[in-house]
């Protein structure tokens, strides 16, 4: 990837992120923040590569910490977002005055 191409990717991705979020209702702010928190868990692949190419003990230790933290970011982000959105669906069902036991 040459520098200028990388710069184009950066610019287009920035606009994409802005557009994707621009009309989100307040009620979804918390789940969406959590969801975007999950998405930057992609740092896991970078941490894996960094550890995979580590040679010295110092590099390995830092690399291990990196992978551990990144996995925590990705998995934790996914679990809490999923739990919240599940609940959100249930509350939508209740808004139509369904029986309280109807959620799942």
């Amino acid at each position: 990837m040459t520098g200028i191409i990388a710069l184009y990717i950066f610019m287009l991705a920035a606009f994409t992120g802005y557009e994707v979020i621009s009309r989100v209702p307040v009620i979804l702010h918390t789940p969406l923040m959590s969801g975007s928190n999950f998405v930057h868990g992609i740092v896991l692949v970078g941490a894996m590569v960094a550890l995979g190419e580590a040679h010295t003990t110092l590099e390995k230790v830092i690399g291990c910490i990196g992978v551990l933290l990144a996995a925590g970011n990705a998995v934790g982000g996914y679990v809490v977002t999923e739990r919240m959105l599940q609940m959100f669906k249930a509350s939508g069902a209740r808004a139509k005055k369904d029986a309280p036991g109807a959620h799942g």
Partner: protein
Amino acid sequence: MSEFASAALLIQASYFVTAVLFIMGLKRMSSPVTARSGILWAGAGMLVATLVTFLYPGMTNYPLIIAAIVVGTALAWWSGKRVAMTNIPQMIALYNGMGGGAAAAIAAVELYRGAPASIAISALAVVGGIIGAVSFSGSAIAFAKLQGLIKGSLRFGGQKILTLIVLLAALTLGVLAAAHWNASPAVITGIFALALILGVSMTLPIGGADMPVVISLYNALTGLAVAFEGFVLNNAAMIIAGTVVGSAGTLLTQLMAKAMNRSLGNVLFSGFGDTGAAATGEVSGSLKPIDASDAGVMLAFAHKVIIVPGYGMAVAQAQHKIWELCQLLIERGVLVKFAIHPVAGRMPGHMNVLLAEAGVPYDLIADIDEINSEFENADVALIIGANDVVNPVARTDKSSPIYGMPILNADKAKNVIVIKRGKGAGFSGIENGLFYLDNTRMLYGDAQKVGAELIAAIKAVG
């Protein structure tokens, strides 16, 4: 085609798919109808990217990689599944900080190995590393504050100057390393140590009420750090996902700050502490306690009751009890409504999730614009664990740090009952003028216990 080349092609193609899944997933998450499937799409993308990365050419240390993934996954899965909905904001902060720390770790590994040959790439590694480390330690402080591990806000004279000096020192060392003047391990270590201190000193002075904005900001910063390290590793998935989160997170931060009527600069640089001292002296009058049986009678014979739930109610897990209380009142013919401030649950949208969990129907819940004109003809405003969002000082006192923040006009109600655990000031540390009004009564105790007492009192009325 060699084995390496085909593996590389597969990895590139998979990262492309991942990027598409992430963007579409986020798009789906921004609409109520499709939100649930959005996280599944993004999750599938993450899984694909993680699996193909094992095929990366020239990788070693597989046992270490797998062990670290297993440990990280187990810890996060365990904590994420078991955290109460009320504590979601600090968990987001925690997981976000971990991402920032991971980005910083990538930068550290690359820089300790010797700064990358290209000065531009070196600079990106350094800047991404600094941002990641700031996000890591800053998020950790935000987590500790929301979790109650750190109480209050540490502030002292010259704090901003000190923060600025630390920032400049980190940047100076960063320039030394990136420009290949001195990329010795000592300098690299100095960069990260200073960046970690910077995150702490930036976050400590910020009041608890502003924390959601700060968490959202660190979320955006982690995204940016991930994107920068993506440039260093020449990894398109990291560049795209990181940048998308960086810009989406920035927008989300602005939306949240707007909901609280605070500018981002205001949150970060002129923290609550600067003008708070002047405001605390303005409140006069006394706190007038009431017991649950009197409060129960007051509620039972009211025509209209507006409930203002705050984080305190959620902490006490009282939403079920309060809803039970409301149902009792509704049976008696009392008109009951819930008034939700945009930041009632510490984060926009958080309180709606909590009330929905307890079974409160949506048509009883009103937001600030719908309900504010109704307080005047409400007999009782029942404040449960809310504080700053009903502080009339925000309307009247220009010297107050929360001046100008939109508040719920609970003080306009004929009677105000405040359920509160103790006599301390609010989360932001500001005295609440509402509590001292002539028509306000304080009902001290844990919201869940008080709720049960109120239910008993109303039943006793018959």
